[in-house]
């Protein structure tokens, strides 16, 4: 929302703050200023000029050769703007003039033709973003007049950020009310030069009303609760006078003509959008507010010929739509040079209606922006009268004595109970009834009662959209008191009843473990291309991010490619995140699961002068996987099964981890080609682990007596047929070894000379120990025999 400081000061005569002070105050009131823009700064040298002649540059199609009267004789200027032509008033930056951004104008030769100056666009003058052509000025000017003075540009523009609950701040009046020393009571509308107040008398009706010359019928009272209209005759449409143009330019608007500019002035000043129709283009002198009918179309002011969405709210004449209610007028009934009779509309529309309509059409205008937030239902007559006064002063003519006012219900001030004690209960410090009165009355609230126990607070129309409950008034009290003036002393608190979710403990345990193992934590987002997910976004921004991942691995493996491409050979990453699966039943939400994914490639250790580190291999991965499975599923005894046919992993180097038949993890060496790897890259290994659906509380450790007696170790070199899973034998050995057998470890694997074809020799170390005595060979030997018997019988395995 652009605010002109000059305009603001005229509305609130007591307001003397500098623009910077205004910005600070507005921020503290909840409407921060994004930018303070001094208008006319840095363009003091620019002059008003008239283009006397414009013809094509003899040597360039796109350039024009212009003879320009800049006040000090006629100069030649080469101009590239498409809109330059003889007769228009323009802004000339003469030779020697500086422009914002550091441009210095010099006499130049452009394609062989002398150019003494530059004709400026809005953007070049720092007045706006428009750069499609040069700025055309309408009105009476004197060549050579300083541009800033001629346009009354000495002003400062504040770009104020207004939250969606405060439509009252979308006008100079609303901002002035917040800032003026006496609040609402200290405001006065600036006089209109040459203006004479002229208010029609209102012909009222619930659904329709008419005067001697026109009719208004509202068929959709819910969506258009109030509709005011007045007619002006004998107007002369022309460029607005400089004061009116300056007002609009100061807020970044573009003057069009005196009638349209008058409506825009009221929009910026009072916040009420108005629309002016050329009454002669309204068939049957009738305005109907109704839903669009099937097949109806409208060419809007922006030139678009739009098919109207079914039932969108329209302003129509006896036959056709002539405007999109609250959004944009129609081309056909637009006020132009030939217009002499004007019908002025001042309406109140239901905010959700306007919001739904403009979303259907994919557009937003100054009018719809205000209507969808809510305009002041009590300020409509004043807005219309103000607009009439401006038109009469700038376009002449007269207003018809009767206007119409169609509304089924007359608006009345809502009243809200405000309990004085409740204010303290929410805000934490006491507010006396007098203090409450002093804070609320300047904003236009009226307070009935003494304040003990409370007030009945009347809400002005412009605040009726956001002040509906007691808490809304309490917020106003806090806001007007100033958030900065509240103390910030910590008080004791009671602990909550919500237990900490154990998920976070597991997440932290895994993170700590993997960071200790030398892994960096990555963070990829859940969006994936169609091949990698089953849950589909309704309106994705790109195809590559159109679904939600079913697995973390593809995304993390892309990060490996990314790192390879940047020359990083050693990549050790992990990430914890959410994966998504389609809902269990239609209409339900997708299923979610947290996963841990890990990738590693490169050397087992960083480079060291003592020798080259071996590249990581499957056993590094499997070791890590064993560790994280134990952390995530403490005490569980998983089975490790070869994984074949996986998209990511090489057959023969991949494993699944099962717990009671459910896969909780898979990992292995990544298939060549899955990662875009340069030649120097080593093998890439990866795994993915699912978090348990309900994270168990941590297992308490249990003390076990430290062995007081030494144990006896026996090593068995066993011939294991290729294809047999040697990792399963310890389980059998443990069962056969009896109570004294405490540990079975695999310490050696050999398949060189001396081992029969089709076998591997694997060394198993058995540790026997008793807690109460030192074991003798005689006790251990039978147990070893038992183990060997079982191995031969159950597995067909013998000693080497």
């Amino acid at each position: 929302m652009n605010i002109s400081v000059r305009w603001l000061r005229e509305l609130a005569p007591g307001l003397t703050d500098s623009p910077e002070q205004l910005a600070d105050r507005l921020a503290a009131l909840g409407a921060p200023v994004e930018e303070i823009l001094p208008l006319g700064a840095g363009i003091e040298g620019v002059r008003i000029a008239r283009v006397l002649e414009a013809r094509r540059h003899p040597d360039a199609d796109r350039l024009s050769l212009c003879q320009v009267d800049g006040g000090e004789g006629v100069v030649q200027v080469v101009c590239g703007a498409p809109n330059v032509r003889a007769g228009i008033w323009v802004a000339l930056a003469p030779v020697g003039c500086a422009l914002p951004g550091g441009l210095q104008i010099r006499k130049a030769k452009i394609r062989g033709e002398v150019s003494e100056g530059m004709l400026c666009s809005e953007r070049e003058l720092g007045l706006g973003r428009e750069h499609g052509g040069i700025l055309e000025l309408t009105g009476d000017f004197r060549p050579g007049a300083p541009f800033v003075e001629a346009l009354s540009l000495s002003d400062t523009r504040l770009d104020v950020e207004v939250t969606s609950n405060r439509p009252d701040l979308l006008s100079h009046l609303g901002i002035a009310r917040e800032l003026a020393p006496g609040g609402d009571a200290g405001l006065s509308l600036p006089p209109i030069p040459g203006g004479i107040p002229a208010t029609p008398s209102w012909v009222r009706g619930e659904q329709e009303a008419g005067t001697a010359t026109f009719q208004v019928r509202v068929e959709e009272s819910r969506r258009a609760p109030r509709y005011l209209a007045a007619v002006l005759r004998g107007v002369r449409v022309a460029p607005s006078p400089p004061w009116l143009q300056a007002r609009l330019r100061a807020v970044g608007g573009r003057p069009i003509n005196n009638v349209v500019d008058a409506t825009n002035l009221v929009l910026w000043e009072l916040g009420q959008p108005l629309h002016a129709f050329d009454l002669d283009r309204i068939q049957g002198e009738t305005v109907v507010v109704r839903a669009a009918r099937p097949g109806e179309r409208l060419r809007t002011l922006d030139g678009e010929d739009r098919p109207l969405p079914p039932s969108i709210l329209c302003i129509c004449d006896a036959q056709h739509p002539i405007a999109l209610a609250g959004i944009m007028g129609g081309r056909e009934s637009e006020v132009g040079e030939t217009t002499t009779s004007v019908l002025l509309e001042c309406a109140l529309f239901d905010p959700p209606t306007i919001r739904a309509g403009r979303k259907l059409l994919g557009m937003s205008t100054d009018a719809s922006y205000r209507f969808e937030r809510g305009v002041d239902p009590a300020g409509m007559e004043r807005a219309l009268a103000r607009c009439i006064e401006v038109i009469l002063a700038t376009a002449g003519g007269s207003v018809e004595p009767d206007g119409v006012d169609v509304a089924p219900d007359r608006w009345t001030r809502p009243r809200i109970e405000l309990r004085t004690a409740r204010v303290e209960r929410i805000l934490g410090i006491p507010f006396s009834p007098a203090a409450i009165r002093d804070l609320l009355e300047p904003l236009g609230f009226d307070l009935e009662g003494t304040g003990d126990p409370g007030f009945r607070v009347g809400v002005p129309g412009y605040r009726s959209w956001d002040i509906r409950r007691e808490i809304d008034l309490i917020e106003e009290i806090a806001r007007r008191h100033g958030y900065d003036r509240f103390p910030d002393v910590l008080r004791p608190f009671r602990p909550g009843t919500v237990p900490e979710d154990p998920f976070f403990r597991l997440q932290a345990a895994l993170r700590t473990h993997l960071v200790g193992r030398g892994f960096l934590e990555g963070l990829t987002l859940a969006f994936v291309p169609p091949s990698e997910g089953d849950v589909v976004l309704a309106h994705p921004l790109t195809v590559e991010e159109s679904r939600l991942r079913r697995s973390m691995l593809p995304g993390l493996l892309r990060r490996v490619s990314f790192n390879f491409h940047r020359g990083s050979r050693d990549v050790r990453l992990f990430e914890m995140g959410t994966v998504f699966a389609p809902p269990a039943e239609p209409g339900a939400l997708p299923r979610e699961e947290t996963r841990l994914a890990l990738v590693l490639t490169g050397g087992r250790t960083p480079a060291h002068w003592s020798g080259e580190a071996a590249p990581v291999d499957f056993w590094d991965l499997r070791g890590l996987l064993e560790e994280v499975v134990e952390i995530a599923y403490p005490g569980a005894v998983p089975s490790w099964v070869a994984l074949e046919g996986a998209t990511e992993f090489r057959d023969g180097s991949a494993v699944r981890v099962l717990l009671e038949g459910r896969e909780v993890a898979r990992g292995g060496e990544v298939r060549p080609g899955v990662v875009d790897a340069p030649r120097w890259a080593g093998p890439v290994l990866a795994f993915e682990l699912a978090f348990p659906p309900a994270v168990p509380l941590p297992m308490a450790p249990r003390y076990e007596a430290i062995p007081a007696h030494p144990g006896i170790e026996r090593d068995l070199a066993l011939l294991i047929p290729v294809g047999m899973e040697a990792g399963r034998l310890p389980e059998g050995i443990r069962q056969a070894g009896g109570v004294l057998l405490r540990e079975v470890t695999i310490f050696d694997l050999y398949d060189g000379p001396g081992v029969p074809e089709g076998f591997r020799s694997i060394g198993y170390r058995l540790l026997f120990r008793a807690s109460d005595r030192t074991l003798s060979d005689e006790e251990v030997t039978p147990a070893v025999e038992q183990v060997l018997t079982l191995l031969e019988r159950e597995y067909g395995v013998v000693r080497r």
Partner: protein
Amino acid sequence: MTELTSRLLDLESEALGALDAAATGEELEALRITFLGRKDGRISSILRMLGSLPPDERKAVGAEANRVRDRLEAGISERLAGLEGSGPAEAGLDVSLPGRGSWVGGLHPVTRALEEVCAIFESMGFVRARGPEAETEWYNFVALNTPLDHPAADEQDTLYLEGGGLLRSHTSPVQIRVMQDHRPPIRILAPGMVYRRDAWDATHAPAFAQLEGLVVDEGITFVDFKATLAEFARRFWGPGTQVRLRPSFFPFTEPSAEVDVRRIVTLPDGTVSDTGWTEIMGAGMVDPAVLENVGIDPERYSGFAFGMGPGRIAMRAWGIPDLRLLHDSDVRFLRQFAR
């Protein structure tokens, strides 16, 4: 015990005695040849005899002979090493060379910021809770007092899912889920990913981490709200941090505020560094309508809530210029935050 094994035991004690007596490298070499020499070392010759023994005996004697040989070899090498170490010619290690390293791991900067923030709030009695990332309109908007036909619903452009549901646009739905399941007093933090229909650029991503906080109890006031957040800010950014609350609007809090912090520090060289006011979170007193939506009596209970982005906090705190760096998982970037 066979005759051979007892002979081995005798040999062992004899050899160990000689080992103790030996004083020079030459004497140790002589000892080695006497007992372990390939041709006629006294232990080697027993080993050579093994082939002629019956299988049972062969095994027992063999094991014992190997044991004795190994022990003697180890003893000789140890003595030799000791003699060499004291020799004048031996140079020390070049201790200027670097030691053997291991890979350095580290938390993601977003995690790191999140953990630091959580630790502060946890010391003030908050515990962590979580909720799903795919949500219903009711949890994401309606229960939070945000009608879908109000412009406030636009401010977070929501990602909807085919077949129903949406990706939560903020962590605030966790407030609702927690309040449905638990009665006050409530003091929770809810970290998690949130989603918006935003294209990637230096300050936007279609998903980012957010941290929600919620307190509901009897007698919670605006002063408690302001004090808690100011305490957090001073502990996170340092004791001299200035904290400013500005009125704002969120449909689910009232009064609502944006929280800004500013830090002015005089550096050792006398220059003054001023961060200026920077926005760190949106917050406010829980709107009574939200409490009503979960069946908590707003006349009896009140509370406050806040939401902040650990990613933005990390970027600001550690000088990360572009949000996309957070999601590249470039190891050269992540290593900078590893320690």
